């Protein structure tokens, strides 16, 4: 529901998580892969917080159709990005032997 509390909670949670991610990256606090996981975690939790507190995606009768639509799209987002990433990392691995197959290992 549209309450000030919800909006403030969403704001605070996502802002703190973005702050944490920036501090982690700027300070090079963790090794590379761990850092990546950490900021992905920050992003994931921030998204969930925003989607629930700000966008009111819940299973109440008023919002159920919006939730259904989002739930339908999420696998497609994952497929679009995930399968593309898999396809091209396989391709690079096989056609460009000089380049390591894992992205992020620049």
């Amino acid at each position, binding site marked *: 529901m549209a309450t000030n509390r919800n909006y403030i909670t969403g704001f605070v949670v996502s802002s703190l998580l973005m702050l944490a991610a920036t501090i982690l990256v700027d300070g090079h606090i963790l090794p590379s892969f761990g850092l990546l996981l950490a900021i992905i975690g920050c992003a994931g939790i921030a998204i969930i917080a925003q989607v629930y507190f700000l966008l009111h995606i819940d299973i109440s009768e008023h919002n159920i*159709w919006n939730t259904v639509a989002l739930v*339908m*799209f999420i696998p*497609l987002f994952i*497929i*679009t990005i995930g*399968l*593309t990433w*898999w*396809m*091209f990392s*396989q*391709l690079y*691995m*096989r*056609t460009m032997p000089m380049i390591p197959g894992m992205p992020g290992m620049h």
Partner: protein
Amino acid sequence: MLVNVPGPWSPLLGRLALSEIPYTNPILAPLFIVIVLAGIVLIAGVTYYGKWGYLWKEWFTTVDHKKLGIMYIILGLIMLFRGFIDGLMMRTQQALGDGPGDNGMKVMGAIHGYLAPFHFGQIYSAHGLIMILLAATPLLVGLMNIIVPLQIGARDMAYPYLNALGLWITTAAVFLIMISLFVGDFSHNGWFGYAPIFELAYSPGVGVDYWIWTLELVALGTTLGSINFLATVVKMRAPGMTWGRLPVFTWTAVSANIIALTSFPCLQVALALVGADRYLGTHFFTAGFGGNLMLYTNLFWLWGHPEVYFVILPAFGMLSEVIPAFSEKPIFGYITMVLASFAIAGVSWIVWLHHFFTMGMGPYVSTEFSIATMLVGIPTGVKVFNWAFTLYRGRLTFSAAMLWSIGALFLLLIGGLTGMMLAIPAINYMVHNSVFVVAHFHMMLLCIVYAVFSAIIFWFPKIYGFKLNEAWGKIMFWLFSAGTFLVFFPMFMLGFMGETRRLDWPFNPQWGPWFDVQEIGIFVYILSVLAFLWMLYVSIRDRHANRVHTADAWGTSRSLEWLTDTPVPFYNFAMVPHINALDEVAWRREHGFMDKKPDHFKAIHMPNNTPIALYIGALTFLVGFGLTWRVWWLTLASLILAVILMIYRSNKGDPGYIIPAEKMEEMDRESKARMLSDDSHQVPHGGGFSGGTVTAYTALDRDASGSLTPPNDSRHL
């Protein structure tokens, strides 16, 4: 930021120049004259009969889903015809060009056959684009537009204005590709484009730009339409129309539009990135500077595969309506039909790599996509079996519509089986880019065309009040099927023999006889087109004799749209129907409730017509044209004007108008009286919507010449 174009550019005209008009081309120059003359005759005719007011009020500014659907279908049929001419030209070029050496018609400037290669390239690119996106898609969207609200008991779509906007944006795309015939040239790179040939360095003309913006406009129009359909089915169903009672056609419309909503943005991005490469000099798909050629193919087919399921699912839905009606049985396996539709939609999202198995992603990736592609055959097979079981032990009527539907099943069988073959990478590597693939997808697309013809014949009486001529419908069917067999059966064989796609010079003389067979097939197709036109003429000429006097035109129809009067009045249902069962009309007929009228009426709320959708559509055409020719002032001005119009419309809003209950009762009585009457004066001119029929603005004032205001005692909000 903006790249320097090869060739002249001026701030006023962009890349436009007199040299861009092909007045020396022996085919296009006469065609242009013919079209100009035909246009003059058309405009003169409309003016002479004084029909501009009628056209403006009833068609160009309408937001009625039925009329918008009809306009979509007309658009689709015209483009089907143009695409067919392109196909005819391709067939003829290959038949004439076959054989060794330099056997072309010099007078036409051709080295082989009669078409120069750069002309042939444009023809196959336009053929593909037009047939899929500007013929099949509008035909399907049009039919869905007309039927879905009727099937769920609604009075219109959820967003009538947005509906009109989608139509006019699609029309803008049609104008853009049609004008590419006479101003500049079209893309030579096939309908789906290849990197890096579509880059500015390798395609310096405007052809690829025409292609980009036509596709972008179509994508926009279709996305807006898909939002409309989904919101309509979710929110606007009549009371008692639970999800379990939704007709199968509406279910397939829902799953198809879910596909459209989710996949068209991928197309918009893919093309926008091509545009960025060509206009801004970015390096998304270039061969150097860190670009990735294969990324384009990946992004395009991300859209491209769900797209083909977007076009086939409504066709399946149409088959699911026609076959039960003419078997006098409910559809076999309603639940599995619905589940299969969604299974197809879902799986369609994980198969797109099968369009480029040969690109080298490796065995693991190819395996996943191959298995997923084969998986999609299972729900499709379920559907085919369900149709077969519906026919089994039914009381079959082999009307023209039924023939088209059964023909569609045969084409689906061949197309589906060859599709399963193509799903296997080992086979795919052999036939990739050969005409075997072309024959496969033409089987599928023709399945859609058959289903569309079946649906048009089936639902025509509901909209227009009279049936199409059965005999000529059947003649057209047999001619069309003979043509299909003659053209595509050899094509499968040629594919195995090694003929690749898009050859303007099929150099192997051993293929010669097969090309001749295909050319005969094309002539048979021409006969079927003539049969179609003759069918239309005869049907309209004999419309009084073919009048339908009942709501249920075929006597054995099953779903809710057959509850409305014939022809359908603009408000669809005078009183909101209450749904009691699946196949509501069949249920009412069996229980003897078809003649029961409502005992009282309520006032209804209808949306107003508006010209804004037409204006915005026209402006999007100018935006596309300006972008193509890099006329920046035109692009910017049209864009800003379009935004201003959108804001203006938003500020004005549309409260609609209310028709009071007494008027509803009167109009309902008149509509039913007209349905029963045999008096030829009562028959609407030209079909269901002109002149004396119940239309929004001329309903009650037959004496008045038709005013722009709604009926006298309706209240503006």
